[in-house]
């Protein structure tokens, strides 16, 4: 049962209570969808328009957006683009009065979780919302991890960063020393310092970190 699943989720993630944002200009649909999502224990905030949503103060929590594709003013697809451009990475679940194949394809291509037609099937909606929340959680975890790594990386000296960048390419110390015109001993010191600061336990972990940070040879910035 989804319900059990959701409740279990709630218990597990108390510190990260998800929020579902429902945006539909039809109050009846909005309230019903909100009601349904609340009945499975989700926190729901609803908005009558995309504008209202963009102007609202939102808590920093994992979540997703349930969005009517036919919104007054900007269309749902345009709104999806606006979200990306505004740095709001919430996954979107579209709901539509009628199944428009080309529109749903575009929506999915643009990163929508699901394109659901009204009247909504409970299972499909809850699955999609769940998937959305999961995706957002994963994204948030990833983002948090990157932010932590970035913080650690920021503690490295510029020499340590140089050494770190070369270490992740798998080069031996000797070669690194030669390349940086340093003694092998000096390289060793920088290397252990960098690994300690990054809290990496193995070379494999260092490489993963570098990958997440986007650190490559000759570059020292995360992207």
């Amino acid at each position, binding site marked *: 049962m989804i319900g059990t699943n959701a409740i279990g989720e709630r218990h597990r993630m108390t510190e990260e209570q998800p929020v579902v944002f429902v945006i539909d200009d*039809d109050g*009846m649909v909005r309230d*019903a969808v909100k*009601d*349904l999502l*609340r009945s499975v224990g989700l926190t729901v905030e609803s908005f009558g328009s995309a504008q209202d949503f963009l102007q609202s103060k939102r808590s920093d929590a994992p979540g997703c957006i349930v969005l009517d594709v036919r919104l007054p003013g900007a269309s749902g697809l345009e709104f999806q683009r606006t979200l990306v451009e505004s740095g709001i990475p919430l996954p979107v679940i579209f709901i539509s*009065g009628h199944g428009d194949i080309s529109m749903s394809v575009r929506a999915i291509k643009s990163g929508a979780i699901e394109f659901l037609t*009204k009247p909504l099937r409970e299972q499909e909606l809850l699955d999609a919302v769940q998937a959305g929340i999961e995706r957002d959680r994963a994204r948030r975890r990833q983002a948090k991890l990157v932010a932590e790594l970035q913080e650690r990386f920021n503690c490295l000296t510029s020499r340590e960063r140089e050494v770190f960048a070369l270490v992740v390419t798998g080069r031996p110390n000797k070669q690194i020393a030669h390349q940086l015109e340093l003694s092998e001993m000096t390289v060793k010191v920088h290397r252990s310092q960098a690994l300690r600061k990054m809290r990496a336990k193995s070379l494999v972990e260092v490489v993963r970190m570098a990958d997440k940070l986007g650190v490559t040879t000759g570059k020292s910035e995360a992207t």
Partner: protein
Amino acid sequence: MKRVAPMPCEDTTERYSAAALESAQLAAIVSSSDDAIVSKTLDGIVTSWNAGATNILGYQADEMIGQPITRIIPPELHQEETQILARLHRGERIRHYETIRLAKDGRRVDISLTVSPLFNQSGKVVGASKVARDITERKLAEQALRETAARLRTLTETAVDGVILIDARGVVLMFNPACEKLFGYSAEEVIGENVKMLMPQPYRHEHDRYITNYRDTRDPKIIGSGREVIGLRKDGSTFPMDLSVGEARQDGESIYVGIIRDITERKLAEQALRETAARLRTLTETAVDGAILIDARGVVLIFNPACEKLFGYSADEVIGENVKMLMPQPYRHEHDRYITNYRDTRDPKIIGSGREVVGLRKDGSTFPMDLSVGEARQDGESIFVGIIRDLTSRKRTEAELEQARAELVRVARVLTLGELTAAIAHEVNQPLTGLVSSGNACLRWLAGDVPNLKAARESVERMISAGSRAGEVIRRIRALVGKAPPLRDRLNINDAITEVIALIRGEIQRNHISLKTKLSTDVPLVLGDRIQLQQVILNLILNATEAMSDVSPQPRELSISSAKDGPNGALVSVRDSGTGLDGTVLDRLFEAFYTTKAHGMGIGLAVSRTIIQAHGGRLWAMPNVPQGAIFQFTLPADGEEVS
């Protein structure tokens, strides 16, 4: 005669007696004369007085003899007597001297006087004999004449027309004020001159010859009639004038009276008229529109080149014929009636306005034309001008437009239906979404270990609200549909057919299809949706029209008929002479999305059959003979379906 005035005497007896006899004869003549014969001495004493004198002047002879003659001379004329006596002294005779004498009763008598001296034997003047004739009547006649002349003068003086009097040599005797105005000469400048001065060359040169010619031959070239000539003004300018010349005789000589009228304005008007006519001719000759002139009986008077092109007739073939020849039936048949009707009632059915009629070409083909008719009067008779514009190309454009419009309407109807469906779907979907989602939520509120009844109740309330809204939507749609005619209406299928034909007549004509309709009057009323049934009929006709678009040499015949079907049903048939249907096609004809047409959806017949079946009827097809197809459908009568 009491006493004889001293007379010349003979001294011989014989001679005397002869003289006495002569004298007696003379006396008898004198006494019986109507003229007054009086003799007097040179002193003016009356010596004899005859009966004529008594008659004229009233004095008896004894009253006057021995009296001075001045007694009968008016005082103001006494001087005259002195002169007469002086002349007599010189031995002169005075002939036909007109003067006035006083009668005894004081009347003044006009007389003509001849006075002769009387000589004695020695030849000396001793007295005078006067013969006086009463000329009162002549005088009166002269007076009348003078008055007539004066009146004439007044007349000519005030006449609007110029009056010139010339003598036989052409010398101007009279030149009235109107002439002065016309020619710019004063009468004084012209009178006594030759009338030639009023003529420009070549008339001036010819005029003498005219006059002598007439005098010699009496051939009246101009006399007694009028003609148009040119007058020459003093300032050298010329003007057209109408001249009529009359002849009179005066003292044995001819004199001529010329009456002159300035016709400058008339000439200008004539000129303008001629120019207008010429322009009109040019206009009709070069006009793009056809122009026909007919008289009141319909006979063609003018048929311009544009008409020749339009109708294929040359002007020669049409002019003189009745204009009916350019009209197909039924116009041809009706035209005489139109004309007589208009003549009698003056009810302008078409006069002064335009209308669309059909023209008949020489080759028998017809064409739509716009005809506007104007009326003009000529010599009291009506003539009619028809301006004709070929509407063929306009008609074609109209037909194309109509087709485009029909196409649009069809597309629009489909679109509208699609949009309506979408709109309805959306409208119903929203509350339905609310209903289902709230229902789901409600179940969940109730499914928990501790059911959340409050939340569940709210969910149910939302469900009710959503359900109500869905009901509202349905009501609105029903209201919308309610505006359309009811689905089942009692209708005359013939009317439905006629309306459809009216709708696509242009399409049929554009495709050069001859349409025959045979609508039976005993077809019973049927029960059905007029619009839907008309869609079926329209669909069948359009199919037939398209099927015939490829059979160029064969006749394109479309026949639409209705008949009574069985005891109380209706049968509608649409026959064409198109490409026809073969067996395999016939089997699949009514399947949806099956089509033999290049541009067809294959829906029309399927939908048509559905509609007919929904009406309780049947729709089927069969081959036509010799070629083409027949589509027929039946509809049950009104009574069969309805209670």
